[in-house]
């Protein structure tokens, strides 16, 4: 689904975003992207949606080579990837319904399709009652649910989330995490950047750890940090 091959991204002179990262993520996987602040998690995600471009190496998403992709194709790439951000990135003057509908409208969806799909997805994220509210009339957790609904309403094969629980309290975070997990169970590949240790430890999913833009660990059924590796790796008894 996603292949990074020797990808390097340098911002300024000394500011290294990613340093020769090679990584492959299969279809249907759930991957935590972990690492301290400034380790390159957001850079990874912004490269995936071609918001920025790699200086070296090749990036392939769903069989499409992003290096050679023309500008005009980028919107179509983004429609095939659902995006969730720490700051929700909702359209402020629009209701919950209209925010979700916008992601359908850009694809040319008919009003009929919108009338069917939006309530469906809002009920999935538990916001049916709030369809006519504006974003600033919602709590942070509710806004993030709208953002997840918008990211998933087109049923993309890949959903990426950059610290989606970064602004939320632990209980609310669990709700968002469960939502992403359920989306993953429908067969959608999910990549989630986070430094929420507790959450990663609890989920025991594949963990890709970055530090200073380098891959320092890539492990299945893992915890947040290497200290816990032993426990996670203990082969099942018997």
């Amino acid at each position, binding site marked *: 689904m996603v292949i990074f091959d020797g990808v390097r991204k340098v911002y300024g002179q000394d500011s290294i975003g990613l340093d020769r990262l090679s990584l492959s993520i299969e279809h249907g996987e759930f991957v935590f992207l972990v690492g301290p602040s400034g380790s390159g998690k957001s850079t990874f995600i912004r490269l995936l*949606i*071609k*918001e920025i471009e790699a200086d070296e190496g090749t990036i392939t998403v769903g069989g499409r080579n992003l290096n050679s992709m023309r*500008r*005009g194709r*980028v*919107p*179509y*790439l*983004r*429609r095939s990837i659902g*995006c969730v951000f720490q700051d929700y*990135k*909702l*359209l*402020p*003057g629009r209701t919950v319904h209209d925010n979700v509908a*916008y*992601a359908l*409208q*850009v*694809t*040319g969806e*008919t*009003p009929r399709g919108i009338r069917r799909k939006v309530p469906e997805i809002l009920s999935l994220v538990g916001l049916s009652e709030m369809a006519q509210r504006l974003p600033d009339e919602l709590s942070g957790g509710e806004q993030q649910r709208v953002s997840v609904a*918008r990211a998933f309403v087109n049923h993309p094969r890949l959903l990426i989330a950059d610290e989606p629980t970064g602004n939320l309290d632990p209980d609310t975070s669990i709700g968002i995490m469960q939502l992403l997990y359920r989306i993953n169970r429908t067969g959608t590949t999910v990549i989630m950047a986070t430094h929420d240790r507790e959450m990663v430890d609890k989920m025991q999913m594949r963990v890709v750890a970055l530090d200073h833009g380098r891959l320092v660990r890539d492990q299945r059924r893992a915890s947040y940090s290497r200290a816990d590796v032993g426990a996670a790796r203990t082969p099942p008894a018997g």
Partner: protein
Amino acid sequence: MRPGFFLAEALRSIRANAAISIAATVTVLIAVFILGAFIPSFLYVQNTVDQQKDKVDINVFIADSATVQQVNGLQRNIDGLREQGLVRESTYVSKDDALADLRERLRDPSVLEELPSNPLPASFNVLPADPGQSQQIVVALQGHPAVDADLGISFASDTADRLLTVARVIQYAGGALILVLLVASILLIGNTIRLSFVARRREVEVMKLVGATNWFIRWPFVIEGILFGLAGATVAVAMLFGIKVLVVDSWAADADSALTRNDAGTIGFLALAAILVAAGAIVGALGSGITLRRFLRV
């Protein structure tokens, strides 16, 4: 579905930036108003000049006292000039013909009934082969005994030349003024769209993140510009119509009641309104289109 959606998006944006929207509309209003006042005046002057241009003929007025022989002699002189290639055509206009002509040009011919006798002279109406040679013809016929000593020979080519120059100056100056006004409106609408765009910069970034193409984002702004153009032009047309009905039409009525009628026409109001509204829409589309080309790199 698309046009409806884009229109709704444009209206949403106009509502969000009401003050800026009104400013843009007023800008177009002013430009279109001046354009709308200028076009008919310009055409009127142009038509008047065109009519004068046709009047390069020479009138050789015949004295009432001239004998038939003298008039025949004059006719032979003119025929001679035709053989030399100076004169293209000549027509004899009798006193009665002249009176009939005048009767036709007057709004109220009854004033002529009160005349005791026909005061108009007979004349030869001579068309020069080349208006530039009018002077030569005049010199050749001057002093002939049949020619009326007071009225003499009149020709309009000097006036026509001067009018032509004036018309050309008006044409260039008017064209330049219209051009400046249109460019100014395009730039002002462009600026309004730019402000509207900058105000929604973050929103536009989000739209791009969810996969909106550049044109999907642009269309509402283009429609917004066209709506400014249409609104401004419509108000300008309404104001022009008011001025036409209240002021110009009564002037025209006054002018008509004067002794002679000027039949130099100008443009009909409906045609003018259509041109102005179309101009407003095009100005709006260009203004937003030009601005948006510079924005929106993915």
